[in-house]
């Protein structure tokens, strides 16, 4: 776990939450610092949304505490949530409003003045790609448009910390790419972005840090590179040859840094003793033994591999 620091924007300490007899969160702790894009991963029912709803003060924890910019949202929601933006998973917005009216209402909730709201609404509708739809009733929006407006609503107060529960679900690929860039840019501006997502690829692409939760327990929290490292047990080089000979196999097995070599047809799976890229050395060895190399890949662990291993370890 990371140590607390003055840069901490979200601090979750020893959070435990019961639904009746069911323990939804079991002493969950993590810290999110300023400027991070924190990906919060976990399978369905792991406790991701429960964590987020507790962070927002919507759920009362049985034990532990949450602090947003140093303030507990359960005790002082007005101060804690003033600089926070939140977009829920698959939101249902108030269909009797138009997009502009809902943004205006949310702006009022944050105490923005008339002129500030007017400017911000225009800016946000443009940012989320709903410029032409601002004056239309939300009841007429598609799911993807509601999702985009929901992100816009979360940004109305120019928040310091942005909490997003599955923000790109229901969006088309173009919008997904647009919002990924948006989150990255927000992070560059010094804002903190907390994203709960099932899309591992998305998390790996944009997140600087990651937290993994399974069955209510925190399995890992830390920089994304560290999670890959932590759950990597072995690096593997996969080689495809025109023809695999016994000479090539035995020579590779004799190399100091090779743990084992497995043969599958004309493919070799070379398991390494060290987490280091030995493709140059391997290709030279194969060449020296008169082998014809068709392809050579280093298989490092992906976030998905780490995620699956982490979940397995947490069970």
């Amino acid at each position, binding site marked *: 776990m990371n140590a607390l620091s003055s840069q901490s924007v979200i601090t979750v300490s020893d959070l435990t939450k019961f639904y009746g007899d069911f323990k939804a969160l079991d002493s969950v702790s993590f810290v999110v610092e300023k400027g991070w894009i924190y990906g919060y991963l976990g399978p369905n029912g792991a406790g991701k949304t429960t964590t987020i*709803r507790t962070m927002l003060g919507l759920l009362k924890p049985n034990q532990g505490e949450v602090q947003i910019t140093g303030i507990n949202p359960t005790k002082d*929601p007005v101060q804690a949530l003033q600089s926070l933006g*939140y977009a829920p998973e698959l939101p249902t917005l108030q269909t*009797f*409003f138009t997009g502009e009216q809902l943004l205006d209402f949310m702006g009022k*909730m*944050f105490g923005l003045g008339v002129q500030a709201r007017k400017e911000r609404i225009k800016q946000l509708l443009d940012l989320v790609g709903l410029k032409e739809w601002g004056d239309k009733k939300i009841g007429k929006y598609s799911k993807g448009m509601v999702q985009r407006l929901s992100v816009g609503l979360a940004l109305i107060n120019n928040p310091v910390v942005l909490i997003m529960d599955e923000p790109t679900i229901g969006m088309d690929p173009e919008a997904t790419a647009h919002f990924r860039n948006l989150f990255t840019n927000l992070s560059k501006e010094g804002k903190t972005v907390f994203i709960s997502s099932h899309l591992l690829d998305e998390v790996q692409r944009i997140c600087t840090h990651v937290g993994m939760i399974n069955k209510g327990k925190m399995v890992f929290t830390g920089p994304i590179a560290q999670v890959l490292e932590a759950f990597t047990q072995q690096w593997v080089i996969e080689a495809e040859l025109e023809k695999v000979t016994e000479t090539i196999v035995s020579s590779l097995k004799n190399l100091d840094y090779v743990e084992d070599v497995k043969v599958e047809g004309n493919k070799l799976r070379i398991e390494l003793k060290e987490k280091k890229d030995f493709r140059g050395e391997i290709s030279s060895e194969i060449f020296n033994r008169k082998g014809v190399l068709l392809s050579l890949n280093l298989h490092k662990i992906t976030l998905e591999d780490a995620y699956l291993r982490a979940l397995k370890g947490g069970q």
Partner: protein
Amino acid sequence: MSALRRINVIVGYEWRRAIAKKSVLTLIILAIAFQTLIMVVFSRFGATMFLTDEDKSFMWIYSVLQGQGFFIPLIAIVIAGGSMSEEYEHGTADILLSKPITRVEYMSGKFLGGFSLLALVEALPTVVGVVLAVWFFGPQNSLQYVPLLFLAIVYSSLIFFCLSFMFSEVLRRSTLAILIAFAILIASSIISQLLASLYMITGEYLHFYLSRGIPTWGASYFPSLLIKELMTLPSTAFFASDPLISFEAAKRGVSETILVGEALQQAAIIVAVYAIIFILVAVYRLRKSDVTKKTA
């Protein structure tokens, strides 16, 4: 931003939410249509059969009270029944309560928004009632009391508004909240009348007090009791009579005027006590429990 401003923002929101409901608009139209129909019937038949000329000059009271009769408690129940619960059902409570506002401020805004809208809705049959009375029965007496009668009607509707509001928060299901509040409205009206009849048969004061302690009595009789306290109505005025008061006056051998004053105080207290209890239960539920996830 001050707490008052935050509450005010929610009041405005609640107005928009309630006005957007087709059921509320339908009930308002039905209330006015029913009120007009009754006055047409009275002008056609009552004027020739049993209404004296003196009665006719006070018909605005009947017109206004009758306009509030059944539909206004129903509108109160529908507005309040969906106020809190629909936000949980649609998942919008999460969005609203994740903004910088306390739960009590949020509930205050919801309550004041819904209740102020109900007051505005009640103003409509009040004005229409007076207009219809003048239209069908000619010039009316004591019209200076119209605003007071209106305020009395608004006050008395607190009971069913608060009852439905409480169920809306406690059950967090709009249909269930509306149905239960409506069932209580009907049941308590029947039980109150049964107990009053029982008292008139047995003379047991337990039945008398139980009859008055039931929510409908305070809500139904407070406006008419106030009118009787404020002005002298013709003895033939059927629309402001409470059989229990007449019975009690005869039994005790006192003037009905004395009992009207007593009953008015009791009705005012009963409305206030029920309203406060219902609101406290709702506040307790909201403050102590988690915000329920989307259910609809």
